[in-house]
């Protein structure tokens, strides 16, 4: 059963190079994400991944099309939707001079939630940093805290925007384990990533975006079978990186 449905999502922006022109950062994206699924959105820089996510999260207006989460329309009830989603953003800065526990208490209050902040920190293995300042954490710890802050309302859907960018292999693996653990409780997870190994390892299904459109959508295994070079349908030779390059080309985007 799908928990997220999006149909023909469009987001228009003024062209930064020519302000008189409008371009579609997201150009007719339709998605159907099942409850309990880990769904990945891949794509080069500027493909429209984050914008798609932010439209689903109610952070950006949907210019055309519609989206619903748990059967609630995002455009007409953004505040209702925000009550049962958790969001980890790319940038994870917080108010200065506040400890992790204090920040979690703030987020709990914003949802009128009564979870124990220490329990949440334990869940992301940061209980010994309870009284540390968020700005003193390492990259991996920051990302784990960011996920903890997205769990304060025990969300049905967790959005993760590039959760492992810039992390070392250990920290990355640690986040993967956390995502799998959360998913094992039935939580639906939607993530964007540039890391093909991550997409292949974590995601049940993947959508590949380019120039604001979804150009392929399937399970990692099927995508590899379909698009990786030297395709032999019975044996898996390539990996997700091959699929990605085959679909979006070799050229640098920025």
């Amino acid at each position, binding site marked *: 059963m799908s928990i997220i449905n999006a149909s023909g999502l469009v987001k228009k922006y003024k062209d930064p190079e020519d302000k008189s022109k409008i371009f579609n950062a997201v150009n007719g994206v339709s998605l159907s994400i099942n409850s309990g699924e880990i769904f990945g959105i891949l794509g080069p820089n500027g493909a429209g991944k984050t914008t798609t996510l932010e439209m689903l999260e109610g952070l950006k207006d949907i210019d055309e099309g519609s989206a619903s989460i748990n059967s609630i329309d995002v455009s007409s009830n953004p505040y209702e939707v*925000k009550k049962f989603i958790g969001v980890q*953003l*790319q*940038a994870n*800065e917080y108010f*200065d*001079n506040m400890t992790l526990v204090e920040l979690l208490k703030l987020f709990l209050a*914003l949802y009128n939630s009564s979870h124990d902040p220490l329990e949440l920190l334990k869940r992301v293995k940061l209980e010994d940093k309870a009284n540390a300042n968020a700005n003193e954490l390492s990259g991996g710890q920051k990302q784990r805290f960011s996920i903890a802050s997205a769990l304060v309302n025990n969300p049905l859907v967790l959005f993760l925007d590039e959760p492992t960018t810039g992390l070392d292999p250990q920290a990355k693996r640690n986040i993967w384990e956390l995502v799998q653990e959360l998913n094992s409780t039935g939580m639906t997870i939607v993530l964007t990533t540039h890391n093909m190994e991550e997409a292949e390892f974590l995601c049940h299904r993947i959508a590949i975006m380019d120039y604001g459109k979804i150009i392929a959508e399937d399970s990692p295994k099927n995508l590899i079978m379909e698009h990786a070079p030297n395709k032999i349908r019975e044996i898996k030779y390539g990996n997700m990186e091959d699929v990605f390059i085959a679909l979006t080309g070799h050229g640098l985007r920025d």
Partner: protein
Amino acid sequence: MLSKPQLYLTKVFIQIFLRNKQYIFFSLLLPVVILGIVGLNNGERDPVDIGLVDNSNSNISKEFINKLSNNALFNINQSDEDSLRNKLIKGELTLILVLPNDMGNTNKTTNIKLLADKSQINFIEAIKPIINETLMSVEREISEKIPMFSLDIEDIKARTQTYLDFLLPGIMAFMLMNLSIAGSGFNVVEFRRRGILKRLFVTPIKPIDFVSAIVVARMVIVLGQLSVIFSFAFFFLDVNIVGSIAHLFFVIMVSVLMFLTLGFSIGSLAKTQESVGVIASIFIYPQIVMSGVFFPIETLPEFIQPFSEILPLSIVADAMRSISSDGLSLLAVYKNMIGISIWIIIGAFISTKLFVWKEVAG
């Protein structure tokens, strides 16, 4: 009433402020130092240093010098012209009066030469009437004429008002403006730049929750800061507060709201941290000079005065001064309250028109 999320956010904003000890210290330091200096000087201005060259050495000139010396406004330095000129150039004197040889010759008008530094010309214009008055009284005594008119100035307010009494409401209004602008415009741009606003707006709170938390938190912060300054002036500097303190603090609350809406407008106009600084400076600096905070508006050039009177800081400083120093009630300062309300409407209009929350969050 505030909802639980609003209350908690308010508490967090106050907590963040209280933990920034350095900011608290420096925001209190300047007003305390200025009030302290003025207060320790008993609120009186220093006498004007005048150089005096007596080329006549007559009874009349001595009488003139004697009269001038008895005036507490002046500090007379008598010497030769060359050494006094040097002192004038060094800035140790404000002006030099040269009494000519023929002073006392009753058959013709004596021309007294006044040497001055052109940069002080405005100030000299202000004290010229006193010098003229002294000259006339000397003249009357010599000619043994009884003056036809005499002007007795009686203070109908029947109280002593010092410069400190004038300065305190102005300084408080000035602090109030700075704290409010920093709390709205600067904070919003900073939170936006660091992605904190975006993080807040993925939770179910609405822009109005965020704005009301900032408004309430800033009111508490400003009340706290101003109470410190007010207590310092009241208990240590013996300032005269004639009016109702409750009315004074009501004006403060409404004024915080006004400067917050104007601060949000500045934050809406500015896209970056650098530009918010520049726009805030354009808003703040002219008001320091033109709002009668440190000196009465009447001392400004006449063509600027109507403009000065409608500046937000002028309206607030005037209302606070009318209550604290002149003992007027809220009702009596209704014109100022209307002015503040108009500025609130202007600020609210600009900030709601320009402040695109979706963009802020994005």
